[in-house]
Protein backbone atom coordinates (compact mmCIF):
# COMPACT_ATOMS: atom_id res chain seq x y z
CA UNK A 1 0.00 0.00 0.00
CA UNK A 2 1.26 3.42 -0.88
CA UNK A 3 0.02 6.08 1.47
CA UNK A 4 -0.39 9.61 0.26
CA UNK A 5 -2.21 12.52 1.78
CA UNK A 6 -4.01 15.37 0.06
CA UNK A 7 -3.52 19.01 1.05
CA UNK A 8 -6.97 19.05 2.63
CA UNK A 9 -6.05 16.03 4.72
CA UNK A 10 -2.73 17.55 5.78
CA UNK A 11 -4.58 20.75 6.74
CA UNK A 12 -6.96 18.74 8.91
CA UNK A 13 -4.05 16.92 10.56
CA UNK A 14 -2.27 20.23 11.17
CA UNK A 15 -5.40 21.58 12.85
CA UNK A 16 -5.58 18.47 14.99
CA UNK A 17 -1.94 18.95 15.99
CA UNK A 18 -2.66 22.60 16.70
CA UNK A 19 -5.42 21.80 19.16
CA UNK A 20 -3.38 19.00 20.69
CA UNK A 21 -0.32 21.18 21.18
CA UNK A 22 -2.57 23.94 22.59
CA UNK A 23 -3.62 21.53 25.33
CA UNK A 24 -0.01 20.44 25.77
CA UNK A 25 1.21 24.01 26.16
CA UNK A 26 -1.43 24.70 28.83
CA UNK A 27 -0.18 21.63 30.71
CA UNK A 28 3.46 22.70 30.37
CA UNK A 29 2.65 26.24 31.43
CA UNK A 30 0.88 24.94 34.56
CA UNK A 31 3.83 22.73 35.40
CA UNK A 32 6.50 25.41 34.94
CA UNK A 33 4.43 28.33 36.22
CA UNK A 34 5.36 30.33 33.11
CA UNK A 35 3.56 31.27 29.90
CA UNK A 36 4.21 28.94 26.97
CA UNK A 37 3.70 29.80 23.29
CA UNK A 38 2.98 27.34 20.51
CA UNK A 39 4.05 27.56 16.90
CA UNK A 40 1.80 26.64 13.98
CA UNK A 41 2.40 22.91 13.53
CA UNK A 42 3.98 21.55 10.37
CA UNK A 43 2.34 18.45 8.89
CA UNK A 44 4.66 16.55 6.57
CA UNK A 45 4.07 13.33 4.67
CA UNK A 46 7.55 12.36 3.50
CA UNK A 47 9.40 9.37 2.12
CA UNK A 48 10.94 7.55 5.08
CA UNK A 49 14.48 8.41 3.94
CA UNK A 50 13.78 12.16 4.10
CA UNK A 51 11.92 12.23 7.41
CA UNK A 52 14.90 12.50 9.79
CA UNK A 53 16.57 15.45 8.07
CA UNK A 54 13.21 17.27 7.93
CA UNK A 55 13.27 17.24 11.74
CA UNK A 56 16.93 18.09 12.34
CA UNK A 57 20.60 17.16 11.81
CA UNK A 58 20.97 13.39 12.33
CA UNK A 59 24.00 13.59 14.62
CA UNK A 60 22.81 16.49 16.78
CA UNK A 61 22.58 15.48 20.43
CA UNK A 62 19.10 15.75 21.94
CA UNK A 63 17.07 14.38 24.80
CA UNK A 64 13.98 12.58 23.58
CA UNK A 65 10.96 11.55 25.61
CA UNK A 66 8.79 9.00 23.82
CA UNK A 67 5.25 7.96 24.68
CA UNK A 68 3.51 5.24 22.72
CA UNK A 69 -0.14 5.57 21.77
CA UNK A 70 -2.14 2.38 22.13
CA UNK A 71 -5.76 1.58 21.42
CA UNK A 72 -7.75 2.41 18.29
CA UNK A 73 -5.00 4.62 16.89
CA UNK A 74 -1.40 3.51 17.20
CA UNK A 75 1.57 5.82 17.08
CA UNK A 76 4.16 7.69 19.10
CA UNK A 77 4.46 11.12 20.61
CA UNK A 78 8.05 12.31 20.88
CA UNK A 79 9.40 15.40 22.62
CA UNK A 80 12.85 16.59 21.62
CA UNK A 81 14.86 19.02 23.71
CA UNK A 82 18.38 20.35 23.05
CA UNK A 83 20.95 19.87 25.87
CA UNK A 84 20.90 23.65 26.62
CA UNK A 85 17.11 23.75 26.83
CA UNK A 86 17.08 20.59 28.96
CA UNK A 87 19.23 22.48 31.49
CA UNK A 88 16.78 25.42 31.45
CA UNK A 89 13.68 23.23 31.81
CA UNK A 90 15.25 21.38 34.73
CA UNK A 91 16.22 24.68 36.35
CA UNK A 92 12.57 25.86 36.17
CA UNK A 93 11.70 22.76 38.18
CA UNK A 94 14.61 23.25 40.56
CA UNK A 95 16.66 20.20 39.59
CA UNK A 96 20.08 19.66 38.01
CA UNK A 97 19.87 18.45 34.40
CA UNK A 98 22.73 15.96 34.64
CA UNK A 99 21.56 14.35 37.86
CA UNK A 100 19.23 11.36 37.92
CA UNK A 101 16.48 13.84 38.86
CA UNK A 102 17.12 15.71 35.63
CA UNK A 103 16.23 12.88 33.31
CA UNK A 104 13.24 11.94 35.43
CA UNK A 105 12.07 15.58 35.45
CA UNK A 106 12.28 15.68 31.65
CA UNK A 107 10.44 12.34 31.52
CA UNK A 108 7.72 13.85 33.70
CA UNK A 109 7.46 16.94 31.49
CA UNK A 110 7.14 14.57 28.52
CA UNK A 111 4.55 12.53 30.36
CA UNK A 112 2.31 15.46 31.25
CA UNK A 113 2.68 17.29 27.96
CA UNK A 114 2.38 14.13 25.84
CA UNK A 115 -0.58 12.79 27.78
CA UNK A 116 -2.52 16.03 27.42
CA UNK A 117 -1.81 15.99 23.68
CA UNK A 118 -3.02 12.40 23.39
CA UNK A 119 -6.11 13.13 25.49
CA UNK A 120 -6.94 16.07 23.22
CA UNK A 121 -6.67 13.74 20.21
CA UNK A 122 -8.96 11.25 21.89
CA UNK A 123 -11.54 13.93 22.74
CA UNK A 124 -11.59 15.30 19.18
CA UNK A 125 -11.77 12.01 17.34
CA UNK A 126 -13.66 9.76 19.72
CA UNK A 127 -10.84 7.23 19.44
CA UNK A 128 -10.26 5.15 22.53
CA UNK A 129 -6.55 5.69 22.93
CA UNK A 130 -4.16 5.97 25.83
CA UNK A 131 -0.49 6.74 26.33
CA UNK A 132 2.14 4.24 27.43
CA UNK A 133 4.60 5.34 30.18
CA UNK A 134 7.34 7.69 28.94
CA UNK A 135 10.82 6.47 28.00
CA UNK A 136 13.74 8.88 27.77
CA UNK A 137 17.03 8.83 25.88
CA UNK A 138 19.79 11.37 25.32
CA UNK A 139 21.46 10.56 22.03
CA UNK A 140 21.76 11.42 18.34
CA UNK A 141 18.57 12.96 16.95
CA UNK A 142 18.67 10.54 14.01
CA UNK A 143 18.84 7.48 16.24
CA UNK A 144 15.93 8.65 18.41
CA UNK A 145 13.67 9.77 15.56
CA UNK A 146 14.50 6.84 13.25
CA UNK A 147 13.75 4.36 16.02
CA UNK A 148 10.30 5.92 16.53
CA UNK A 149 9.67 6.07 12.77
CA UNK A 150 10.75 2.43 12.33
CA UNK A 151 8.08 1.24 14.78
CA UNK A 152 5.38 2.54 12.46
CA UNK A 153 7.10 2.05 9.10
CA UNK A 154 5.76 -1.37 8.17
CA UNK A 155 3.34 -1.39 5.25
CA UNK A 156 3.78 2.24 4.24
CA UNK A 157 6.36 4.14 2.22
CA UNK A 158 5.40 7.49 3.74
CA UNK A 159 6.27 8.82 7.18
CA UNK A 160 3.66 11.22 8.52
CA UNK A 161 5.10 13.66 11.04
CA UNK A 162 3.23 16.45 12.81
CA UNK A 163 5.79 18.83 14.26
CA UNK A 164 5.02 21.68 16.70
CA UNK A 165 7.17 23.85 18.93
CA UNK A 166 6.40 24.82 22.50
CA UNK A 167 8.39 27.87 23.57
CA UNK A 168 8.71 29.10 27.15
CA UNK A 169 7.99 32.82 26.87
CA UNK A 170 10.95 35.13 27.35
CA UNK A 171 13.41 32.35 28.11
CA UNK A 172 14.55 31.22 24.66
CA UNK A 173 13.74 27.65 25.56
CA UNK A 174 11.70 25.34 23.39
CA UNK A 175 10.50 21.78 23.02
CA UNK A 176 9.97 20.22 19.63
CA UNK A 177 6.98 17.97 19.65
CA UNK A 178 6.31 15.18 17.15
CA UNK A 179 3.27 13.01 16.55
CA UNK A 180 4.07 9.95 14.45
CA UNK A 181 0.88 7.98 13.82
CA UNK A 182 0.73 4.58 12.16
CA UNK A 183 -0.36 5.10 8.57
CA UNK A 184 -3.41 2.83 8.49
CA UNK A 185 -4.86 4.55 11.54
CA UNK A 186 -4.53 8.00 10.00
CA UNK A 187 -7.01 7.25 7.21
CA UNK A 188 -9.48 6.10 9.84
CA UNK A 189 -8.77 9.20 11.90
CA UNK A 190 -9.41 11.45 8.89
CA UNK A 191 -12.62 9.53 8.23
CA UNK A 192 -13.82 10.31 11.75
CA UNK A 193 -13.12 13.98 11.18
CA UNK A 194 -15.22 13.75 8.01
CA UNK A 195 -12.25 14.42 5.72
CA UNK A 196 -12.13 12.27 2.59
CA UNK A 197 -9.06 11.92 0.36
Amino acid at each position, binding site marked *: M*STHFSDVQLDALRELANIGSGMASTALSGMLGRPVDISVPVASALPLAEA*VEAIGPA*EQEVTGVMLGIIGELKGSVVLLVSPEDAVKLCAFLGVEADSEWGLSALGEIGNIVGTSYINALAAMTGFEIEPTPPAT*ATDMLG*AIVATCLAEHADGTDIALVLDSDLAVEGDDCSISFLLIPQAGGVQELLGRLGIEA
Partner: protein
Amino acid sequence: MSELMARMGEYAVSADRDDVLVGLGLGSCIGLALVDRRSNVAGLAHVVLSKGEPAAGDPPVKYAHIGVPYLLEQVVAQGARKMRLEAVLVGGASMFVSKNGLEVGQRNEAAVREALEKLRIPVVAVDTGGKRGRTVRVYMADGRVTSRLAGGPEELLLKPYAVGVAA
Protein backbone atom coordinates in the same frame (compact mmCIF):
# COMPACT_ATOMS: atom_id res chain seq x y z
CA MET B 1 36.55 13.05 -0.50
CA SER B 2 32.82 12.74 -0.89
CA GLU B 3 30.41 11.23 1.59
CA LEU B 4 27.64 9.04 0.20
CA MET B 5 24.71 8.90 2.63
CA ALA B 6 22.58 5.83 3.21
CA ARG B 7 19.44 7.24 4.83
CA MET B 8 16.58 5.13 6.26
CA GLY B 9 15.88 2.30 3.81
CA GLU B 10 18.53 3.49 1.36
CA TYR B 11 21.91 2.10 0.32
CA ALA B 12 25.17 3.45 -1.08
CA VAL B 13 27.67 1.51 -3.22
CA SER B 14 31.07 2.64 -4.42
CA ALA B 15 34.25 1.51 -6.14
CA ASP B 16 35.89 4.92 -5.83
CA ARG B 17 38.75 5.40 -3.36
CA ASP B 18 37.67 9.00 -2.70
CA ASP B 19 34.30 7.99 -1.29
CA VAL B 20 33.13 7.39 2.26
CA LEU B 21 29.84 5.54 2.76
CA VAL B 22 27.93 6.91 5.76
CA GLY B 23 24.93 5.83 7.85
CA LEU B 24 24.16 8.65 10.32
CA GLY B 25 22.38 8.19 13.62
CA LEU B 26 21.45 4.51 13.55
CA GLY B 27 19.10 3.59 16.38
CA SER B 28 17.16 0.36 16.02
CA CYS B 29 18.15 0.33 12.32
CA ILE B 30 21.11 -1.74 11.12
CA GLY B 31 23.91 -0.35 9.01
CA LEU B 32 25.13 -3.34 7.00
CA ALA B 33 28.45 -2.94 5.20
CA LEU B 34 29.49 -5.49 2.57
CA VAL B 35 33.15 -4.99 1.74
CA ASP B 36 35.39 -6.62 -0.85
CA ARG B 37 38.66 -5.06 0.19
CA ARG B 38 40.78 -6.55 -2.58
CA SER B 39 38.55 -5.28 -5.37
CA ASN B 40 37.96 -2.07 -3.44
CA VAL B 41 34.19 -2.28 -3.75
CA ALA B 42 31.80 -1.77 -0.84
CA GLY B 43 28.14 -1.18 -0.13
CA LEU B 44 26.27 0.12 2.90
CA ALA B 45 22.57 -0.57 3.53
CA HIS B 46 20.45 1.25 6.14
CA VAL B 47 18.01 -1.53 7.08
CA VAL B 48 14.91 -0.37 8.99
CA LEU B 49 12.86 -3.51 9.71
CA SER B 50 13.38 -7.27 9.79
CA LYS B 51 10.60 -8.25 7.44
CA GLY B 52 7.28 -7.11 6.07
CA GLU B 53 5.38 -6.26 2.94
CA PRO B 54 7.11 -3.56 0.90
CA ALA B 55 4.87 -0.62 -0.10
CA ALA B 56 4.87 0.75 -3.65
CA GLY B 57 7.34 3.56 -3.05
CA ASP B 58 9.53 1.77 -0.52
CA PRO B 59 13.30 2.16 -0.84
CA PRO B 60 15.05 -1.15 -1.74
CA VAL B 61 16.78 -2.09 1.50
CA LYS B 62 14.12 -1.14 4.07
CA TYR B 63 13.49 -4.78 4.97
CA ALA B 64 16.34 -7.16 5.87
CA HIS B 65 15.02 -10.19 4.00
CA ILE B 66 14.89 -8.25 0.71
CA GLY B 67 17.56 -5.66 1.40
CA VAL B 68 20.50 -7.98 2.12
CA PRO B 69 20.31 -9.92 -1.20
CA TYR B 70 19.65 -6.60 -2.97
CA LEU B 71 22.80 -5.01 -1.55
CA LEU B 72 24.78 -8.12 -2.57
CA GLU B 73 23.58 -7.70 -6.18
CA GLN B 74 24.59 -4.05 -6.17
CA VAL B 75 28.15 -4.61 -4.92
CA VAL B 76 28.64 -7.55 -7.33
CA ALA B 77 27.43 -5.32 -10.17
CA GLN B 78 30.17 -2.85 -9.17
CA GLY B 79 32.82 -5.55 -9.45
CA ALA B 80 32.91 -7.16 -6.00
CA ARG B 81 33.55 -10.92 -5.79
CA LYS B 82 30.96 -12.66 -3.62
CA MET B 83 33.62 -15.06 -2.25
CA ARG B 84 35.64 -12.17 -0.87
CA LEU B 85 32.84 -10.20 0.75
CA GLU B 86 32.99 -9.45 4.46
CA ALA B 87 30.00 -8.14 6.41
CA VAL B 88 30.08 -5.57 9.22
CA LEU B 89 26.96 -4.81 11.29
CA VAL B 90 26.38 -1.60 13.24
CA GLY B 91 23.23 -0.46 15.12
CA GLY B 92 20.26 -2.51 16.27
CA ALA B 93 20.06 -0.65 19.58
CA SER B 94 17.08 -0.46 21.94
CA MET B 95 16.93 3.31 22.32
CA PHE B 96 13.87 3.16 24.54
CA VAL B 97 13.40 0.28 26.90
CA SER B 98 9.81 -0.72 26.31
CA LYS B 99 7.64 -3.12 28.20
CA ASN B 100 5.68 -4.36 25.20
CA GLY B 101 8.62 -6.52 24.07
CA LEU B 102 8.85 -4.80 20.70
CA GLU B 103 12.60 -4.95 20.33
CA VAL B 104 12.93 -3.83 16.74
CA GLY B 105 16.71 -3.54 17.01
CA GLN B 106 17.30 -7.12 18.11
CA ARG B 107 14.96 -8.49 15.48
CA ASN B 108 16.71 -6.43 12.82
CA GLU B 109 20.11 -7.82 13.75
CA ALA B 110 18.81 -11.40 13.80
CA ALA B 111 17.15 -10.97 10.39
CA VAL B 112 20.26 -9.44 8.80
CA ARG B 113 22.46 -12.23 10.20
CA GLU B 114 20.03 -14.87 8.95
CA ALA B 115 19.99 -13.37 5.45
CA LEU B 116 23.81 -13.22 5.41
CA GLU B 117 24.04 -16.84 6.53
CA LYS B 118 21.79 -17.92 3.64
CA LEU B 119 24.12 -16.10 1.26
CA ARG B 120 27.17 -17.54 3.08
CA ILE B 121 28.73 -14.14 3.69
CA PRO B 122 30.79 -14.07 6.93
CA VAL B 123 30.19 -11.42 9.58
CA VAL B 124 33.68 -10.19 10.51
CA ALA B 125 32.90 -7.32 12.88
CA VAL B 126 29.89 -5.97 14.78
CA ASP B 127 28.96 -3.06 17.00
CA THR B 128 25.34 -3.76 17.83
CA GLY B 129 22.76 -3.79 20.62
CA GLY B 130 22.82 -1.73 23.79
CA LYS B 131 20.91 1.51 24.26
CA ARG B 132 23.00 3.97 22.25
CA GLY B 133 22.74 5.33 18.73
CA ARG B 134 25.67 5.01 16.32
CA THR B 135 27.08 6.36 13.07
CA VAL B 136 28.85 3.97 10.67
CA ARG B 137 31.45 4.94 8.06
CA VAL B 138 33.05 2.81 5.33
CA TYR B 139 36.24 4.38 3.91
CA MET B 140 36.81 3.32 0.32
CA ALA B 141 40.41 4.54 0.46
CA ASP B 142 41.51 1.53 2.53
CA GLY B 143 38.38 -0.50 3.31
CA ARG B 144 38.25 0.40 6.98
CA VAL B 145 34.91 0.54 8.78
CA THR B 146 34.28 2.69 11.86
CA SER B 147 31.49 3.20 14.37
CA ARG B 148 30.86 6.23 16.55
CA LEU B 149 28.55 6.90 19.52
CA ALA B 150 26.99 10.33 20.15
CA GLY B 151 29.72 12.70 21.30
CA GLY B 152 32.35 9.93 21.14
CA PRO B 153 35.38 9.19 18.95
CA GLU B 154 35.33 6.99 15.84
CA GLU B 155 36.18 3.40 16.79
CA LEU B 156 37.82 1.10 14.27
CA LEU B 157 35.72 -2.00 13.53
CA LEU B 158 37.41 -3.32 10.41
CA LYS B 159 41.10 -2.56 9.97
CA PRO B 160 42.47 -0.80 6.90
CA TYR B 161 43.37 -3.13 4.05
CA ALA B 162 47.11 -3.12 3.42
CA VAL B 163 47.42 -2.35 -0.26
CA GLY B 164 49.85 -4.63 -2.10
CA VAL B 165 49.85 -7.37 0.54
CA ALA B 166 48.41 -10.67 -0.65
CA ALA B 167 45.31 -11.72 1.23
